[in-house]
């Protein structure tokens, strides 16, 4: 697991409607919470090799609930 790019994945739980597109796109980073039905990040510092896939999930989120940020030091 290498996260040299220093990036973090966040979900805005207010915005998330549980459409699950992110979970289907990158199941190693996102999952669905059984109770709320909303998406959760299960790997907030993913391997750099997943960067393109997670960017795809950001664009593929119907409610723009996912953001990638620089990791705080």
């Amino acid at each position, binding site marked *: 697991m290498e996260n040299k790019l220093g990036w973090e994945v966040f979900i805005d739980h207010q915005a998330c409607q549980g459409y*699950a597109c992110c979970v289907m796109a990158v199941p190693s980073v996102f999952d669905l919470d059984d109770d709320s039905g909303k998406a959760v990040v299960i790997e907030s510092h993913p391997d750099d090799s997943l960067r393109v896939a997670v960017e795809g999930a950001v*664009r593929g989120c119907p409610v723009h609930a996912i953001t990638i940020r620089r990791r705080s030091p």
Partner: protein
Amino acid sequence: MNGVVIVGASVAGVHAAEALRDAGFDRPVTLLSAETDLPYDRPPLSKSALRGEASKSQLLLRPEGWYQQHGIDLVLGRRARQLDPQRKSVLLDSGAELGYDGLILATGAAARSFEPVHGESADVYRLRTADDCARLRDRLVPGARVLVIGAGFLGLEVAATAHEIGGEVSIVELGPAPLAMALGVDVGQWFKRLHESHGVAVHCDNSVTAIDVRRDRSRAYLRDGGVIDADVVVAALGAVPMVQWLAGSGLELAGGGVRCDAYLRTSAADVVAAGDIAYWDNELYGSYMRVEHWTNAVEQGAFAARSLLGANERPYVGPPYFWTDQFAAKTRTVGYLDGVDAISIQRQDDHSLVALYGRGDVLRAAVCVNAPRSLLSCRRAITERAPWRAAIESLY
């Protein structure tokens, strides 16, 4: 160099433009839209935007400045009229001709219009564009009597939203239950009960044969002799792919759209298609299909762009996926429902439902209402082409 022309600033078209730039394509990109608004997103039009909770700027697919920043020439209010794949040019309604090295067809679909057996269809609202949404929203006021024609996904969403606004809502549906064509009668009955439990009147096995419009009020005559008085009538009768302009171009049309191979390439050189109009060879199912859903448009837009650049190593596969939110029911449908020969409702109560769909002893699709865990396991099983017997014994 003419670069790439994208016809249709739909969700597929915008994602295609973005994928071209992401891939390092540095020649001109022209994105053509028949509409005059900046490219926007459609799913909220029947939900938050119709409730008045999302402004026009919140619906934009990309901020206004994004197109210029990415060197994308966005041309609004211009319709493509004709394609000449030999000369590699698109004729516009302005009379101008656009040459291309690569062409991405992403024209989407238009709302099917309501045509009553008798009389005119004047004053019947529809919902496809942001303008349609704004017009309808103005009429959806508390206490308004709203008649929705068609209990498909869009009709049901409009009915739920109209009810939430405080409307008094009726739905008239030709089939034996809402969504019966798509999901089967038994699952359709679940949606009928959902709407009835909120006080929506659902008239199935029926149709509107005529509408009498008198001063802002309409009287709809039903086939069974019934009469419904309404302040607002909305037709939600499905969509028609926008491919008429391609007739006579020599491009092969099929399945209501444009025939594409597994890489979304059409029968013409350097022309690809994406979204609602792409009738493509989905190798997961071993058959051609056309899918009118958001996720499909997002993925195919980007994929088709990369196909044009020769950058895809594998074909576009995957189970179609879509969602619909009505009242508190979050419905998630994964897989391909056309042509299924077996349906099994795995569980249902007032709040949730899981139904599986099979064909030829293989699991093809699943409908999950308020069942997030089931959705994920069903999708996995569909992707793995799980045997039907094993699926109905293990997926709940």
